[in-house]
């Protein structure tokens, strides 16, 4: 069977599975719809959190980014996992004890303020929308390459599937489909890595094979070879970075803190029965995420060596374009690989200096990896299904945040307090449907800046939510004025810095002009620090939070007496 037929079968089977789960787990109440009635087992919730968290960016792009950036790519590996330590230790148990549906619920109640709630709703919606458009695009790319339909058709197919189980099942449907999606994506990620590791180093485990000697009889370590090749071809040494230490530090911090502040991740901890389960499921989530994240740097290193070898040939003198393997030609059709024969010798050559003739998009590394290493067709099909699973699971989690923000935080808690549970559920479904249509539109007609903005969602979450929640738990006298001032100053500063360097004066976007040498990717960390300082100073000037609020804070600090999440 050819790759395309196999891909249709494997992707089709996974879709049938997701839809089956959606029908089995329909939501009957807002409690089902928002937090799956708080009845999810911590291990399953950990798995669902992992799938929710690992987006198309983790699955498709991350290993590619590490392959091209080497040591500098570590910011994503550490940044996107270290945030779970903050979540588990500083946020998840307390927010679970608080026992409401959403992050704006916490911000609004803790700071006894409609303004704070509305600011939080706006932040949640902005963060979620920037994120989701990228996911739909990921679905489109996978479909267009492997099923050879155009990107728009791919996006529409993705929308229909997500629509089905989000609108029908809400959090309950999403949770159980995410469990299935995790299994699909982790299998699809690990299998090709094991094959490649065996081929290149003879190690079954890619996570350790990555530090082993090559199987070609040279006795050289894989990473040594990669460092050597990188320098020879005019790149920075693979295991050393090109970014400044300050910048690496700030970007890592922004990603970590941003992870802990992302509403679609936090809300997952509202779905377990107890505070103890919230802690445990944070542990399981990181275990399941680590399986993929420990493999990613291995895939990156293998892929980079393979890429050098196939484009430049084992002698590093270039390979004739006519003899290029079929994957090069397949990806050239999508425009993600480009070759320009500058010296007219008919050979492809990839390097980091003026000899370079190739443009290679980092997003193809994971998707093309099985083809690069000549793996069987079913592995290629499996990777396509995994990429789609990653994109769909994250989209569904984000859609739920958007629909909850609108039906619960905006309508029920602010504008239309008198609607009953059934009406609220109807509005939630309606909001989810509209959000899917909108994000589908952005997937088909992406505004040019989507890909960039996704990375900035973390900075925005870091500079807005994170300090407000931390102070809300650990500083019981923190008051409304302090929290609101901190959030506003933090997010405005971060947004302004990003907009200035990315959209207004992109020509100034270099280390000479950055504040303290921090790039727009890392500025969320500074925004967070500013948020903390402003909140504390304003609090000093305006007096303590009322006594009943301080008592409420006392009561979320220990587990006893936690009930299921509720709206009252």
């Amino acid at each position, binding site marked *: 069977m050819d790759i395309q037929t196999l891909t249709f079968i494997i992707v089709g089977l996974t879709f049938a599975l997701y839809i089956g789960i959606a029908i089995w787990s329909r939501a009957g109440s807002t409690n089902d719809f928002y937090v799956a009635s708080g009845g999810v087992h911590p291990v399953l919730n950990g798995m669902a959190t992992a799938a929710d968290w690992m987006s198309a960016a983790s699955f498709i792009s991350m290993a590619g980014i590490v392959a091209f950036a080497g040591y500098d790519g570590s910011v994503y590996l550490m940044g996107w*996992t270290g945030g779970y330590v903050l979540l588990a*230790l500083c946020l998840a148990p307390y927010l679970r004890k608080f026992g409401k549906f959403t992050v704006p619920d916490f911000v609004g109640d803790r700071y006894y303020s409609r303004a704070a709630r509305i600011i939080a709703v706006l932040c949640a919606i902005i963060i979620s929308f920037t994120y989701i458009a990228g996911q739909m695009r990921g679905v489109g790319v996978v479909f267009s390459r492997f099923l050879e339909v155009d990107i728009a058709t791919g996006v529409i197919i993705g929308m229909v599937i997500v629509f089905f189980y989000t609108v029908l099942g809400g959090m309950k449907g999403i949770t159980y489909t995410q469990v299935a999606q995790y299994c699909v994506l982790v299998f699809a990620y690990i299998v090709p890595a094991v094959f490649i590791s065996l081929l290149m180093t003879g190690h079954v485990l890619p996570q350790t094979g990555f*530090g082993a000697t090559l199987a070609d009889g040279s006795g050289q370590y*894989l990473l040594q070879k990669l460092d050597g090749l990188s320098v020879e071809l005019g790149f920075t040494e693979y295991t050393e970075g090109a970014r400044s230490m300050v910048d690496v530090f700030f970007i*890592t911090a922004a990603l970590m803190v941003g992870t802990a502040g992302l509403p679609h991740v936090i809300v997952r901890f509202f779905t377990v029965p107890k505070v103890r389960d919230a802690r445990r499921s944070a542990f399981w989530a990181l275990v399941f995420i680590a399986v993929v994240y*420990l493999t990613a740097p291995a895939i990156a290193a293998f892929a980079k060596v393979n890429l050098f070898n196939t484009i430049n040939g084992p002698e590093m003198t270039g390979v004739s374009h006519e003899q290029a393997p079929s994957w090069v030609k397949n990806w050239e059709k999508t425009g993600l690989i480009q070759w320009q024969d500058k010296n007219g010798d008919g050979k492809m050559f990839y390097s980091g200096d003026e000899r370079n003739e190739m443009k290679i998009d980092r997003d193809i590394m994971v998707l093309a990896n099985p083809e690069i290493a000549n793996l069987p067709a079913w592995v290629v099909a499996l990777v396509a299904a995994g990429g789609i699973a990653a994109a769909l699971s994250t989209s569904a989690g984000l859609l739920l945040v958007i629909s909850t923000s609108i039906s619960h935080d905006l309508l029920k808690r602010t504008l239309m307090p008198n609607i009953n549970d059934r009406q609220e559920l109807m509005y939630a479904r309606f909001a989810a449907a509209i959000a899917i249509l909108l994000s589908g539109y952005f997937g088909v007609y992406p505004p040019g800046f989507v890909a960039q903005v996704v990375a900035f969602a973390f900075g925005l979450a870091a500079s807005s939510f994170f300090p407000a929640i931390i102070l809300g738990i650990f500083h019981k006298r923190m008051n409304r004025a302090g929290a609101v001032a901190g959030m506003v100053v933090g997010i405005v500063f971060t947004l302004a810095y990003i907009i200035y360097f990315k959209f207004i004066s992109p020509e100034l976007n270099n280390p000479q002009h950055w504040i303290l040498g921090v790039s727009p990717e890392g500025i969320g960390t500074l925004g967070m620090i500013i948020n903390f300082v402003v909140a504390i100073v304003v609090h000093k000037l305006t007096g303590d939070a009322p006594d009943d609020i301080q008592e409420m804070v*006392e009561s979320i600090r220990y587990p*006893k007496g*936690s009930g299921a999440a509720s709206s009252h």
Partner: protein
Amino acid sequence: MAFQSAEHAKAYWRENLGLMLKLLVVWFVVSYGFGILLVDALNQITFFGFKLGFWFAQQGSIITFVVLIYVYVKGMEKIDNKYNVHED
């Protein structure tokens, strides 16, 4: 109030914060310390074919994070039981 006395409530919170801060120090030292600030020095050491600083940045820190959360979960369950504020 769930605690026997105000002193118990204070002591519980102090133990909780103590555990949290200890673990956050490890979290910071391993990721930001070994993986970023001290990376050049650690890269002089080779660890099974990895430069050590590079390994911490790409794998070692992630393994540490998993262990940290495990220690926290177990530690907090013990403290909850000691002060009798665990859930049934």
